[in-house]
């Protein structure tokens, strides 16, 4: 089966700095890939490269077998891809329902009329738990609701590939759990999801595989618990000294 997303040697340089350097991976249908890494690792840049908000300086992005490298964001959307932004970008002068309706109006599976779009928006809002706030202004939403709105806008597009950019930052444990539940149910429906996250627990519980990025490069790519115990990952997050200490402790435990 064709992978939904293939990223081949994707790179993006800004002058001398390689924000993303030679990253490759592929995602099968209904697979959930967690992307983690310290700040500045290039995770958001990766999403921007895949979704056409940035042009890669090298490498390819293939979606559903079609090369979409360098395509504009709306062409990527046409390939049934939706994304959320790390810093939420609601349409400030439209209310919550209208924000979501926009997603339903312009995606490849767009609604036939504005009325239908509004109806679909209501469905999606129900699903993410924002139905009561459908008439509210985005400016008045709290963090969790703002994230829900961002997600709802993406879901309204009925994507087959969903890219989430740190949707759980700043959420309370119960909210995180609800978000994870939503991701699981989307996966069950066959959606392929790439989740960029900082919240470890979230990644571990919901990802099929995990990609760790560090300074723009791919550090490790594997099953969640493998990745978490990988020394290079510990080093990247906590520094060489701590990694050494961990290794020493493990050898001690192994030896004893």
């Amino acid at each position: 089966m064709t992978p939904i997303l293939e990223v081949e040697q994707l790179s993006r340089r800004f002058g001398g700095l390689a924000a993303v350097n030679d990253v490759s991976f592929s995602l099968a249908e209904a697979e959930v890939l967690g992307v983690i890494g310290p700040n500045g690792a290039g995770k958001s840049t990766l999403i921007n490269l895949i979704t056409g908000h940035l042009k890669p300086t090298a490498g390819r992005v293939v979606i559903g077998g079609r090369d979409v490298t360098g395509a504009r964001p709306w062409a990527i959307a046409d390939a049934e891809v939706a994304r959320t932004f790390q810093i939420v970008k609601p349409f400030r002068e439209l209310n919550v329902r209208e924000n979501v309706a926009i997603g339903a109006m312009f995606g490849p599976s767009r609604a036939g009329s504005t009325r239908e779009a509004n109806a679909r928006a209501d469905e999606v809002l129900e699903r993410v738990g924002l139905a009561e706030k459908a008439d509210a202004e985005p400016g008045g939403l709290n963090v969790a609701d703002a994230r829900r709105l961002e997600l709802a806008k993406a879901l309204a597009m009925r994507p087959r590939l969903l890219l989430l950019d740190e949707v759980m930052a700043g959420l309370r444990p119960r909210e995180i759990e609800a978000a994870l539940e939503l991701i699981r149910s989307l996966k069950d429906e066959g959606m392929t999801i790439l989740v960029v996250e900082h919240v470890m627990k979230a990644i571990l519980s919901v990802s099929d595989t995990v990609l760790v990025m560090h300074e723009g490069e791919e550090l490790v790519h594997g099953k969640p618990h493998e990745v978490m115990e990988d020394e290079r990952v510990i080093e990247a997050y906590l520094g060489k000294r701590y990694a050494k200490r961990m290794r020493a402790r493990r050898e001690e435990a192994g030896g004893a």
Partner: protein
Amino acid sequence: MASVSSATAPAGVRAIGPRQLVLGGVLLAGLVVLALLPQYFLLSSEQRTMAGVFMFVALAQGWNLIGGFAGYPSFGNVVFFGLGGYTTAILMAKSGVAFWLALPAAAAVGVAFAVLMGLPVLRLRGHYFAIATLGVAEGVREVVVNLDGLTGGNSGITVPAVGAKAVTSYPGNTGFYFYFLALALLATGVVWLVSRSRFGYGLRAIAQDEEAAAAAGINTTRLKVAAFALSGLLTAMAGAMYAFQQVTIYPARLFSVDITVLMVVMAVIGGTGTVIGPVIGAVLLQFLSEWLRTNYTDLHTFIFGGIIIVAVVLLPMGIVSFARESWAHRRISLLDTIRAYRL
């Protein structure tokens, strides 16, 4: 439950209900009045004044599409006005073309130039876009002046309006009253249709967050250029009619920055992104301008500048939004605006 939102959301996304029917009826009555006005109530000179008002309604609505809905403040829309006017004048004067053929030709020129200019220039944002459009308008003006073989340069060009050479007979003040009225209705109708359509929503999304709009699947390039083209079309048609009306036209007038600023001020003060805003703005400011011109000829521009300043400070969101907000909150406060926007 219907969506209740801020000024830039369309009222018409709801189905056509009783409120719409009442408004429609009022509109129809108003149109009948306007149609009967010249015959029974207006002097010839007053008809000319009204024609000016209608022209600016069309211009302001044209600007509204690119500046209000799409959020790209063009400060060079007069370039379409001038191109439309000169196309018409040249076709009528040099090739003996009838006005009714010159008009669509002018419209086509407006659209074509908008696309040509829009593709590179719409990549710029905010101030840069404003200046680039201003630059293009000024540049085109100078080119027109320099092509004096074709355009008559600074001495202007004259459309044959009377006598044997006149291909189309001159409509006179009453005729132009109706021409411009039709154009104003067309322009307002276009804006109304856009406001209810997917296209209009797409433009609004672009204006509010272009990146998010692109991510949502909106082809921002296509929509921006389309809005610009529509704007160019309406503005060029206004220019075409103006050229015929004035008979003799000059580059300084047809490409005047003042016309751009007037249409921007009218749209902004009336309310950008709304359907009725530019109408209100155009009517208000054009009458004000005429009144000032007759009563304070020397001070006219001076006072007008002052009015612009006051209007911008007190009503930056425009009259329509201000009215809606005041109605929604049941109170009128100009100070709230200042508090919201001041440093």
